[in-house]
């Protein structure tokens, strides 16, 4: 049992230990973007579709949770679910159009929708706060039937709550990619034409994948809004979409652990080094180039190679 889920337990350990090294707020942001990158990787790594507009869904999740918290004072779990479903339902509509095309045309469609929705958020100041974003939210505690189960006002308690949500979602995504549905997506990535020839309606499967990815990106967005108690306009901007592509590819697209690694590195660098050295993206840029040139499997593959190399050397010596 433990052995079969070994890598999942490693993830649990990582969630428990990370705050020993990094401030809670940064560590929380890491797991939020890790979830975001994982959901994005369903499309890129498993289905072979590069979405350059995943921030659309993160942003929608964030705005939905933010607005409901601000105006209606919804409790915590319903806020997360509302963020997830608003993003998921939007993905049903946008996905329908995007999956009609492949390769660069798919990329441009996702990008175009992202830009459109970004400008709606930017212009609709009365609802979204426009350029200032949505500010002044309060973060509800975790309550069951009116009883406070977990006080989330501190960064520490919110860290463990969102770490738990991450693990739950990560487990679900991991399950998803191991179901027949997940394997069918890999089949489509490998040879779409043959998949049609053996009886799969390729578009429907890609559509499902798009919606699932949108749903979990929405969870990440809602968590982000509650972490910072605000929804910056940047959350829905294409820059965020680009960052997610970046962190996922650097981490490695072959499974769900690569995106987690990439997101961790990206957020860590951006939050801890940027105050000291504003040109930090330079480092990440260099890492990106090296990874693309030498390790198509990302840092995860680079790490595995290094371990194997060290092992061989030890044996030889």
């Amino acid at each position, binding site marked *: 049992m433990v052995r079969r889920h070994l890598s999942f337990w490693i993830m649990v350990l990582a969630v428990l230990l990370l705050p020993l090294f990094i401030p809670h707020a940064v560590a929380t942001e890491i797991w939020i973007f890790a979830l975001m990158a994982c959901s994005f990787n369903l499309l890129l790594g498993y289905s072979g579709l590069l979405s350059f507009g995943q921030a659309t869904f993160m942003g929608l999740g964030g705005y939905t949770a933010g607005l409901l918290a601000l105006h209606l004072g919804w409790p915590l779990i319903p806020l997360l679910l509302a963020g997830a479903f608003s993003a998921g339902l939007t993905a049903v509509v946008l996905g329908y159009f995007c999956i009609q095309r492949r390769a660069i045309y798919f990329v441009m469609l996702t990008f175009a929708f992202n830009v459109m929705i970004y400008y709606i958020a930017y212009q609709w100041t009365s609802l979204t706060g426009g350029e200032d974003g949505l500010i002044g939210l309060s973060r509800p505690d975790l309550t069951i039937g009116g009883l406070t189960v977990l006080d989330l006002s501190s960064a520490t308690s919110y860290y463990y709550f969102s770490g738990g949500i991450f693990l739950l979602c990560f487990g679900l995504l991991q*399950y*998803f990619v*191991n*179901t*027949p*549905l*997940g*394997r*069918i997506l*890999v*089949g489509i990535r*490998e*040879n779409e*034409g*043959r*998949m*049609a*020839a*053996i*009886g*799969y*309606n*390729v578009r429907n499967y890609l559509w499902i994948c798009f919606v699932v990815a949108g749903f979990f990106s929405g969870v990440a967005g809602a968590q982000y809004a509650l972490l910072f108690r605000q929804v910056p306009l940047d959350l829905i901007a294409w820059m965020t979409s680009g960052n997610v592509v970046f962190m996922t590819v650097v981490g490695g697209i072959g499974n769900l652990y690569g995106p987690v690694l990439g997101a961790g590195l990206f957020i860590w660098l951006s939050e801890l080094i940027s105050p000291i050295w504003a040109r930090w993206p330079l480092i990440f840029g260099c890492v990106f180039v090296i990874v693309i040139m030498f390790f198509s499997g990302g840092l995860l593959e680079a790490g595995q190679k290094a371990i194997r190399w060290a092992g061989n050397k030890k044996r030889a010596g």
Partner: protein
Amino acid sequence: MMNILETQRLTKNFGAMTAVHEVDLTVQGGTLHAIIGPNGAGKTTLLRLISGEIEATSGKVVFQGQDLTALPAHVVARKGIGLSFQKTNLFPRLTTFENIWLAAFSVRRSPRRLIRRAGGQKKVRAAIEEVIDRVGLSESRDRPATELPHHEQRLLEIAIALALSPSLLLLDEPTSGMAREEIPKMMDLITELKKEYTVIMIEHNMDIVMSISDVISVMYFGQLIARGSPEEIRANDQVKQAYLGI
């Protein structure tokens, strides 16, 4: 015996070029029907019309009494037509087992099965084992398709079509690109398959065609110019001129 497949005045134009011209092909259930003809005669296009890979310009495809003409390939496949491609068309990075799994699962799926862990689905596994056994790929079951030698890739190509448990098997040049010494194996396999499946086969190797076909149709410039038993085809003057070049 009933006709399992009928094409009626089936035509496909690519721009100004007519690849398939008013073809009336009838295939009886339980037979092996070979289609021969020179390169560019429209044989592969005919198979792709039947399997729904491409849409006909005019005419009809009727399979087991059902009109399939305008249906997309993924629907046709689930009606019971399995196509094995001339140009090997596998899932290169997936293993032999996974390649066959995709096909076996396709015709045995249900919404519930889609979201249950892929491992323990007995019926699917049983179907895969049977196919692997039958084509003789058990040694290579866990190797990625791209690493298989060419003749095994050809076998896997057929295995994928077989895993669909089709009522009609379309084989587009099963021996394509195979070394001479590997061909007898493929011939044995097709002879075995013939006992169980209705087969339409395109093939250039005349030894195979003449020895195992029940019926042969000859295509020439997009049209069927002859149909008959191997003996009849061999004796047909028109065929000799057009194709056999005797």
